[in-house]
């Protein structure tokens, strides 16, 4: 598995899942919070990666 996007998505999924299950009690609330958190992780990750794009690697 060498896809950076897939690894980021996996990481975001697990962290969102655990936080949502910890913070909320009903499945509906958990799904809502988890979905919002997962989308937030992915969105921020993509935005930050594009912000870093112009910077040189070395």
């Amino acid at each position, binding site marked *: *598995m060498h896809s950076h996007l897939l690894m980021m998505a996996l990481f975001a999924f*697990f962290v969102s899942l*655990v936080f949502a299950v*910890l913070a909320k009690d009903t499945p509906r609330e958990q799904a809502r919070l988890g979905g919002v958190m997962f989308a937030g992780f992915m969105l921020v990750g993509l935005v930050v990666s594009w912000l870093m794009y112009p910077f040189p690697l070395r």
Partner: protein
Amino acid sequence: MSPAPATTAEKSQPGGLVLLCLAAWAIPGIGHIWLGRRAKGFVFLIALPLMFAIGLALHGRLFSFDTSDVLTPLEAAAQLGIGVTYFLAGPIGAGKGDVRAITYEYGISFLIVAGLLNLLVVIDAYDIALGRK
């Protein structure tokens, strides 16, 4: 027959609380299952060891408490948060880490965060036992 959830008296006893926290740390989700929050407990029981296993599969390294570097003991402490799984990884040859692997840093991140999330789960179980949640 499944075991009954811990009673209020059991939960409020200091010895019971220590045992609960130790069990919750050793096996992710067991604290919640013990307290009757089975659905939550099973999610943690599956998700956290799986996250830790993915970290090992990504060639992440398990750190030891080597004090020659400032950050290494902190990383080891965070990874130790996953409980018994941390000690099982060594004997099966996992967690040596491969710095040449492109996924090395990702693996370490998975291992550290899985441990830290389990510590949050332990704190949540403690709060439930005290009746705060």
